[in-house]
């Protein structure tokens, strides 16, 4: 598969502060690639360099075959971008916004189809200020698609939206994938990355700390599942050694136990048996696969969102 984005040894410094400190990755055609990282990790800077909005300090960058710093206009003409927190004038109608932006591009999508696809057809004559948050975000997505781009940058496309709207946007992104568009997505939402991304890169302090499919990442870091056990009576502090258990931790009241196991199918019956024998009265037990968030915390020592 050909690479749509190639980044090698990317550095960006603002004065003494290094925002990006050697980033390498490549995105293939048709892939949905996620950049995950806390605020100030350098993901927005990286994306803006790729979009031609910012100059880099060092490194090689190729986007759709262009160097974004040299061929800014040609690049912008071919990509679609949905930035965080942009607005349109209050008194602009939805269809006018599409016409306006379409005029800037050499290649234009059918705006009627676009409006229908984004479920904006009924709202096409509405003023921008009258739209709900979700509708505004769909307009932003529509604007990112007015030139039928083969590569779309989506910067936190669902931040601040309610779950229902978030699901709608997810469906749209999946449609993009189905239409073989390449998408570079930055997000705070782990579920979003897990659900949508073919591959994810975790960025922290200007560096990529891990990269791979969500599944790969989960396995690479832990290769483990987590079992949560709650009992009615306190458990003894000196637990027996179970087979395949990597580590465990007991809550202060000794009624909640968290066990990490490499072979949960083996550990689970052992645990239940032990609780039965001791008469601790099992109240709740469940098995969880590790999430990307767990991976993230493990890798960076911090949470993605406060």
């Amino acid at each position, binding site marked *: 598969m050909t690479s749509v984005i190639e980044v090698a040894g990317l550095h960006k410094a603002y004065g003494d502060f290094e925002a990006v400190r050697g980033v390498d990755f490549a995105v293939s055609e048709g892939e949905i690639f996620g950049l995950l990282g806390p605020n100030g990790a350098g993901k927005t800077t990286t994306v803006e360099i790729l979009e031609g909005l910012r100059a880099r300090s060092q490194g090689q960058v190729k986007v759709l075959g262009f160097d974004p710093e040299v061929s800014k206009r040609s690049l912008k003409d071919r990509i679609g971008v949905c930035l965080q927190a942009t607005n349109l004038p209050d008194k602009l109608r939805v269809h*006018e916004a599409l016409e306006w932006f379409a005029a*800037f591009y050499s290649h234009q999508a059918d705006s009627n189809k676009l409006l229908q696809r984004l479920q904006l057809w009924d709202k096409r004559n509405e003023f921008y200020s009258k739209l709900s948050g979700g509708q505004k975000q769909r307009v932003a997505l529509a604007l990112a698609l007015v030139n039928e781009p083969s590569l779309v940058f989506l910067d936190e496309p669902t931040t601040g939206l309610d779950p229902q709207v978030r699901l709608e946007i997810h469906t749209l992104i999946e449609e993009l994938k189905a239409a073989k568009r390449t998408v570079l997505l930055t997000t705070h939402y782990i579920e979003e990355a897990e659900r949508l991304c073919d591959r994810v890169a975790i960025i922290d302090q200007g560096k990529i700390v891990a990269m791979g499919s969500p599944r790969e990442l989960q396995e690479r870091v832990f290769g483990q599942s987590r079992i949560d056990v709650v009992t009615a009576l306190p458990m003894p502090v000196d637990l027996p050694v179970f087979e395949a258990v990597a580590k465990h931790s007991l809550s202060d009241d000794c009624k909640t136990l968290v066990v990490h196991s490499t072979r949960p199918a083996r550990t689970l019956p052992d645990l239940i048996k032990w609780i039965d024998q001791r008469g601790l009265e099992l109240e709740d037990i469940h098995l969880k696969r590790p999430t990307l968030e767990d991976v993230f915390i493990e890798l960076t020592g911090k949470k993605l969102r406060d």
Partner: protein
Amino acid sequence: MLNSYLTQIRMNLLLTLRNRMALFFSYIFPLIFFGAAGMGGGGGNPLQVVGMVLGLGVLGGGLMGVGMRAVQDREQNILRRFKVAPIGPGEIIVSGMVTALALQLPNIIFIVVLAHRFLGAPWPTQPGSLLIFVSLGLLAFASLGGIIAALVNSFQEGMLLTQLFYFPMLFLSGITIPILAFPLWLQTVAQFIPATYFNNGLQPILRGRETLFDNFASVGALALTAAVGTLLAVKLFRWEKEEKLRSAAKFWLLAVLGPFLVLGAWQMHAKTNIAKAKVLGRDAQRSRTALIRDARLFLGDGMVLDQASVLIKDGKIAEIYTGSAPDAKSLRADGIEAAGKTLLPGLIDVRVHLSLPGFPINDPQFYQNPDQNFDRELAAYLFSGVTAVKSADDQPDMVGRHQATIVSGERLGAELFPEGKAIDEAYDPALAALEARRAFQRGRTDLLDRALVQQVIPRQWFAQLKDAMKENARPEIIMNPLAPDVARKTLTEAYAAGRLLVVGTESGYPMVVHGPSVHRELQLWVEAGIPPAAALQGATYNAARLLHADSRIGLIRKGYDASLLLVDGNPMQDISATERISTVFFKGERVDRSSLFEQK
């Protein structure tokens, strides 16, 4: 590429038309201002109002339009959205400026039409020059606005900085308040303000006095600012609040104002703008509309109308109404009640010597500045109701110079005619000069007691005048071979013979005082037996014929110069009534006689 400009302009227009605030400030506000100024001015001066409203629109539309819109769009993260599209700051700034132009030009045309329809303003005679000049001004101010937008970080900051430019430009440029109303230092400061150059071009172009080409300095400065300003506005353009500006960038604002710093420095030396401001102020005065109601009219050719009204417009006599006077308001004119008064054509003196003072004076200072003397003497004529004089024996270059400053309106004084071909059959007895010479020889000072004489001779010289008279008296020498009764007889014979009698006073000789002597001459003619109407004709229509200017002055007739004298009483019954001056009009201007001698 072109498509993106056009769409950008179309959308800008669309959004402005949907924005009530913007509409109010671009269209309704100037209209309110127009209405208020138009009403308040009454007959006033419609072109003054038009100039003011246009200036307001161009300054406001230019400075606020493009720049503040960009600041607002940046603050609301709208520009961020454009940043990722294949469009540059150039397209945004340039199409913003074109939009401002497209919004203002119809407004300008609208105001001009409105002023014509409702205030009776004339159509601009230089519409092309006017539109181009106004567009240049708008673009220059818009580019300034664009730079301001790049420099500021918030809407509030932008408003503050914009107003820091807007208000001085509005109030110090002459757009709203005439520059001449300011103290001298402030007049100098005004020469550094871009809007001053805009106003200096706008006013004369609006009045059809000048074209674009006559204002090449203003045009050049505005064009340079528009070009450099646009370049800088594009270069400094910021899409997002977070984008930092190099601190050196603020100095670029000075670079854009550079042309005006150079012009200002040049003006400090040349002062041509101050002269131009005087001319503009004069123009404004001359183009006021006034109705002199219910006066007795002496038309100049001997005809008298017992009750008539005269409409003065754009410096000319626009209409003469006999019978009861029309309403001044309905004619959009300042009403001047003149019942019991007599209106005459401005008096004319066909023989004056401006190089001579008209009274004995030993002060050497007097002779050091002949130009100043000319100015004062021409003012004295106008003060006395004499609106035109013909020079005799003065230096032609000086006469030419002063003729020009009076015509342009830079100074206020009687219109000056150079020496020229006389008319053979004209007879000019100069009785007042004869009388004065005899009085001077004998040291008689009673001629100095006349009120008009005391008003026109500068105070500092009047005090020493009587002493000087006594010193200079030479009663033993008879310098004048002509006895007064002989002169009177010659005059009556000439009148009987039907010769063209004209008033030429020889003012400038000792005791033939510039201005009042014309009145004295008329009184002496009547004493000699000439009918008052014939005497008055000698100082009006006949004199105008001698000056070959009788197609323009010397008569109260439609289309003639509105250079008129309004006096209390009836000079046809008592010729000394001409000295009881109520109002002097000069080329349409109602002369403020009290400040004539205080012109700077």
